[in-house]
């Protein structure tokens, strides 16, 4: 069905149960839509997104010979792919589909004014019709996918993902900035909740990675540049100071891990010798260098769950403290151990039991409130004194102690920002990598073909990191398994006759999709362009047009909003 034939528009208006239908008078909007120019069919559905609704669209296309489809319902963010697919299945190019958001932007926003909401729904449908009349079919270019993955970071997350990808039949490159594989686990002593030796399993995994024929390991290596796009990344890595290598990569996994926060200036850290971090205690336990302590005080949430700044909970510190306290008790049964906490994060099916076990071993837990944090001072005999307001006893107590251990949060590595810029992916408010959707796309990036797992995403323990690592081993494998992908059709197009070659768009493009060609005019790599429109909006010569959002289409929509008759 060509777009140049007579325009025949079908409008499907959704009640969304009562979300829309409870406020907007949907049948009235249907009647209104039927009278709009080029609309040959209109109907309402209880749920247009239900399997019945989808069948209705397809039947409508066949019965009424539709070549433009409008759904007035919820948001294109969640539902456009579904409706577009329905059009395609019925033989209508999916770019001849238009959506009017009469829920989020209408019925929800004007819940208490049903009549006005109905009028606005009519306006939104009219605007969609004005645009739909001008729509043109678009084609999505197909690209091949290189069956080779890059895993950035050779810790437990990166290695787990790499092994699983290799077992699925793909070539994997691991890039690790340190001279050896292993990441954070190299520094850890025992792992909760099984109390397994961290090095024991780590060595097995490292050996499995090294002996796997499909995995190539590059240590002391960093990623310097990433060009290209999903399926066709061209990655430049630097080994040591001088040697650079170019890799052809299909998909990229970010597994760069996290660092430990150093609590400079807090609780006497670096001021008193016997104030150390939980991470330092872990080293002492691992190397068996911990001297017999009489009394140990662990302070939780040091530099975490703050009022401002690092507001987040680092998730692993309560269990790490409980684990290390239990280990000290095993080594030195007579040692007294206090854990000063705000809220104990022993979540899930196993950790609460670890906490109860610790209590049964006479490890003392004292709750403190954020407003009255503990104080660490130097006592008369050179010992440390920890002052704490015990809320339960409603009194301040003093605990003389010979070792104070500060539980500090995991924080992003210093080079996280640089890597995010190289990869053109986002960071969250605390500098961890930011996923595409917190709920349903937790290990994808918004940029296609790049994925994240482990503590690079947010603080988490070994089991949780490993779970995510297996997760990205699926996400990153999918494009490589299908071998060919369709890419975005809504891209920018440069009119060479109007382009002055000023280069504004080249600088502004967040995806690096634009460069100047030999004639000095802007050239867009279509498969890299995400269709964000930044270039078109900022072009001083108006030389850039957005497919599917052309000036003609958007103007028609705007004029319709003002109630002007259709051109």
């Amino acid at each position, binding site marked *: 069905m060509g777009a140049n034939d007579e325009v025949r528009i079908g409008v499907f208006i959704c009640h969304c149960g*009562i979300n829309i239908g409870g406020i907007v008078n949907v049948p009235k909007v249907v009647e209104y839509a039927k009278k709009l120019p080029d609309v040959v069919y209109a109907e309402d559905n209880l749920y247009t*997104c239900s*399997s019945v609704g989808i069948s209705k669209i397809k039947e409508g296309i066949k019965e009424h010979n539709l070549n433009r489809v409008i759904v007035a319902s919820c948001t294109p963010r969640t539902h456009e792919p579904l409706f577009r697919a329905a059009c395609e299945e019925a033989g209508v190019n999916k770019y001849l589909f238009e959506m009017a958001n009469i829920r989020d932007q209408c019925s929800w926003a004007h819940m208490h004014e049903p009549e006005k909401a109905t009028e606005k729904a009519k306006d939104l449908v009219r605007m969609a019709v004005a645009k739909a009349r001008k729509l043109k079919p678009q084609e999505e270019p197909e690209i091949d996918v290189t069956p080779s993955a890059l895993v950035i970071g050779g810790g437990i997350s990166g290695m787990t993902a790499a092994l699983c990808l290799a077992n699925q039949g793909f070539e994997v490159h691991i890039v690790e900035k340190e001279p050896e594989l292993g990441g954070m686990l190299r520094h850890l002593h025992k792992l909760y909740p099984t109390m397994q030796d961290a090095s024991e399993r780590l060595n097995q995994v490292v050996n499995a990675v090294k002996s796997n024929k499909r995995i190539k390991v590059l240590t002391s290596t960093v990623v310097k540049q990433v060009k290209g796009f999903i399926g066709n990344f061209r990655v430049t890595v630097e080994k040591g100071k001088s040697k650079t290598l170019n890799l052809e990569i299909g998909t990229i996994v970010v597994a760069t891990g996290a660092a430990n926060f150093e609590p400079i200036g807090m609780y006497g850290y670096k001021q008193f010798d016997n104030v150390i971090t939980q991470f330092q205690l872990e080293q002492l336990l691992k190397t068996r260098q911990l001297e017999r302590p009489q009394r140990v005080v662990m302070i939780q949430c040091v530099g975490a769950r703050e009022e401002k700044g690092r507001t987040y909970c680092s998730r692993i510190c309560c269990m790490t403290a409980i684990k290390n306290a239990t280990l000290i008790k095993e080594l030195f049964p007579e040692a007294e151990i206090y854990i000063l906490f705000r809220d104990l994060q022993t979540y899930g099916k196993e950790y*609460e039991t670890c906490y109860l076990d610790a209590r049964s071993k006479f490890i003392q837990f004292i709750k403190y409130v954020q407003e009255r944090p503990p104080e660490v001072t130097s006592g008369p005999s050179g010992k440390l004194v920890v002052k704490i307001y015990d809320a339960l006893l409603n009194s301040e107590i003093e605990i003389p102690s010979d070792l104070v251990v500060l539980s500090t949060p995991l924080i992003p590595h210093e080079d996280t920002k640089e890597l995010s810029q190289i990869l053109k992916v986002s960071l969250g408010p605390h500098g961890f990598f930011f996923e595409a959707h917190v709920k*349903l796309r937790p290990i994808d990036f918004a940029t296609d073909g790049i994925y994240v797992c482990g503590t690079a995403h947010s603080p988490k323990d070994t089991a949780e990191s490993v779970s995510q690592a297996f997760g990205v081993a699926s996400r990153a494998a999918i494009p490589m398994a299908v071998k060919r992908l369709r890419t975005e059709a809504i891209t920018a197009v440069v009119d060479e006759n109007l382009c002055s070659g000023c280069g504004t768009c080249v600088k502004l493009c967040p995806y690096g999709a634009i460069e100047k060609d030999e004639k000095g005019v802007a050239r867009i790599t279509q498969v890299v362009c995400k269709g964000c429109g930044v270039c078109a909006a900022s072009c001083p010569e108006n030389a850039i047009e957005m497919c599917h959002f052309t000036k003609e289409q958007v103007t028609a929509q705007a004029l319709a909003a003002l109630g002007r008759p259709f051109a």
Partner: protein
Amino acid sequence: MSQNQGILVVGAGIAGIQASLDLADRGLKVYLLEKSPSIGGRMAQLDKTFPTMDCSMCILAPKMIECYRHPNITLLTYSEVQEVKGSAGNFTVKILKKPRFIDEEKCTGCGICAQNCPVEVPNEFDMGLGIRKAIYVPLPQAVPLVYTIDEENCLKCGLCEKVCGAEAVNLDQEPEEIELKVGAIIVATGFDIFDARRISEYGYGRYQNVITSLELERLLSASGPTGGHLIRPSDGKVPKTIAFIQCVGSRSQRGELPYCSSVCCAYATKEGMLIKEHNPESKIYILYIDLRVFGKGFQEFVNRAKTEYGVEYIKGHPGKIEENPKTGDLVIRYENVVDGKVKEITVDLVVLCPALVPRRDNERLAEILKVELDEYTFFKAKDPLFEPLNTNLSGVFMCGYCQGPKDIPESVAQASGAAAKAAEEIALTSSRGGVGNGSK
């Protein structure tokens, strides 16, 4: 592709759905089995999700439909696993498809049958708060949108058969046995809710205005029994003061569940904020033991609930709740752990946050699959640290809450992980030269 390269996914909540989509998207054949009439699971029952406040159904429905439309996914709803034989790479599975008494091919989901059905029963999907007919779809966005006759309550009056224009009703439908050959199995059966009546001092089941959090979700949901209007059960009035009680049956040291359900502090925060959005003048209390908001963005979510919404968090676990029989109001006695004082608050509505527990039929399924369960009857990981998605049996994987408490993003990540493990199994089987070789 030969048939043995298929994968059976047991349970079609968000975890099972995500595992299926990952596998199907890479070209593998998936059988997605669900014991209830529609896919969607627990997430479909939720109003909104923390900490983004996404409308749960709005982000789930597209995935449900995708499963329905996907050429590589076969939905087996209203079905149960009967028998599993064979080993990794080469399982033979017997499925029992229970009779819906409706021809799935013919039913258009128009609902005329339900309009005419004279039998009203409490709707399980609404936690029994609303009603459905004996011929029903559990939710309006059911996938597949096919009606089911609930044999237990049907009077066999035949009215539905008379009004059905599609001639889809078949009261003589028999159970159907299906045999599948699959290379791997993923278990994603989710969770059940602890019976809050067991904590008798809170009065659930005796006091009308003591409800559970999942009941509240249904009351807040626009597609729920009250159309999204929060009213209290005793008198239909809008509650002004609402108290949430955490750890009902969980973190118990007296014989219920010792573990933490992981999601309640965060969802109670969300529900508190939602109530405030419905009725800005309402007062919300959340009574807790430890505030567990360890997930990404959760602490900030709680901070917002406190500062922007005025939700009041009280560190204290109530000893007793008493009802004022005249007003239906509830008096909560608790010890405030911060100052050690015993206090009382009177509220219009109490929302209990019960422990989330393993599915009651896990034992049956584990026996059929020959896999191990842990002491609570959650599915047990072969190695909780490094192989958290493997059961003890090669070729059988798991993801989501059936393995232990976790939230939606964790379940989704694990679902992709289980998909990777299953794909790995299929790849290994074919590299060994096909079905059955070397996998004994």
